[in-house]
């Protein structure tokens, strides 16, 4: 084999190898870049009225939800109920509700205000359940007030109405929206899992069996 042959042979072999090496370098550098640009934002600004479970639980689940979103209802009625029974009540998960009312839903902002007001009087869980269970009714009529009134006492309802009229609850909702944007939330429901300094976002409704496997891995 002559010198030219060797160069030709070398060229034909080295081009794919060089391509592969360049690609791996790009992947590695981009991976490091992505890591450097992201931060595991600590779970802050938690309103204890809209959270369930122990603050010291090894896993924190933040659920960005819209009361008028059908998928949020499904998540609430199915998977999250099982999470509440099996993980929140046993101290393994701290479940936080985050308001993320979407502009496409006409009444979700109002529903979020009522739920926040109910949280201030210690009735968040009852109102959350009522809003999700009767979603199809109040999204047609816009009667959020009536839906909430059906599950609260008149005295509690008066407090809730006063809080909603006060207009101070929008700031809390805006805080949740801002946090959602920080996590790049672009749809509801989006669940953000935190454990051991790691953050895992997930958009959509989760199957409980698959979620259970994930939570068990996270908790290890």
């Amino acid at each position, binding site marked *: 084999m002559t010198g030219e042959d060797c160069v030709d042979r070398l060229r034909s072999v080295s081009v794919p190898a060089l391509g592969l090496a360049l690609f791996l370098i790009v992947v590695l550098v981009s*991976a490091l870049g992505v890591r*450097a640009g992201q931060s*595991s934002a600590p779970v802050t600004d938690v309103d204890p009225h809209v959270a369930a479970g122990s603050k010291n639980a090894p896993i924190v689940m933040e659920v960005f939800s819209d009361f008028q979103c059908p998928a949020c209802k499904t998540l609430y009625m199915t998977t999250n109920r099982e999470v509440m029974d099996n993980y929140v009540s046993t101290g393994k998960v701290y479940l936080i509700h985050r308001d993320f009312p979407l502009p496409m839903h006409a009444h979700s902002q109002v529903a979020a205000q009522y739920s926040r007001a109910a949280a201030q009087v210690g009735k968040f869980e009852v109102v959350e359940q009522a809003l999700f269970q009767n979603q199809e009714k109040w999204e047609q009529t816009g009667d959020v007030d009536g839906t909430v009134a059906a599950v609260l006492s008149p005295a509690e309802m008066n407090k809730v109405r006063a809080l909603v009229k006060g207009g101070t609850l929008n700031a809390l909702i805006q805080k949740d929206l801002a946090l959602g944007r920080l996590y*790049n939330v672009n*749809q509801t429901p989006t669940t953000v899992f935190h454990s051991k300094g790691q953050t895992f976002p997930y958009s*959509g409704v*989760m*199957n409980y069996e*698959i979620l259970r496997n994930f939570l068990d891995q996270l908790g290890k």
Partner: protein
Amino acid sequence: MMQSSPLNFRRAIIWIGRLVLGGIFIYAGYSKAFLPNHILWPLFFLKFSLSTNLANFALQVEAFKMLPPWGVQFVAHTLPFTEIILGILVLIGWRLRIWASFLTLIMLGFFVVVLRAYLLHMDINCGCFATPEPIGPRKILEDAALSALALLTTYFAFVEARKPHPWSAPQPT
């Protein structure tokens, strides 16, 4: 003097296909297995857990509502590594026709699955890479383009393989 085959349109497509598809498959598998979370560098290596990442990917697979739980777990635990291995094999070009055919089948499978989710108005992320990407027309077009490139690459790889190699001895006339 021995020399490489002259670069023609088919060979150019094969090269582009190998680089693009191989690269994307390696990155897709790598990101699923190693990058699904947001963590603060340099704690990455201290906090890294492959089993947690794969369990996280299982959530993405399940979102398509096409498989039973055992199927979801199987796909979640094998697909990222299949993508990495297939991507490397296509990139280096060893037994290209075989591996490009496999890659094309998988790519077409991705396209069908994503198109199905879009047509069913499923509000989910595609789970293609580490970052959440909602399924929309852009994602459909991306997958269609990659599927077309995979098909062309495989077809041209078969066509080129029929030609005599430039290093081989000339055929007796």
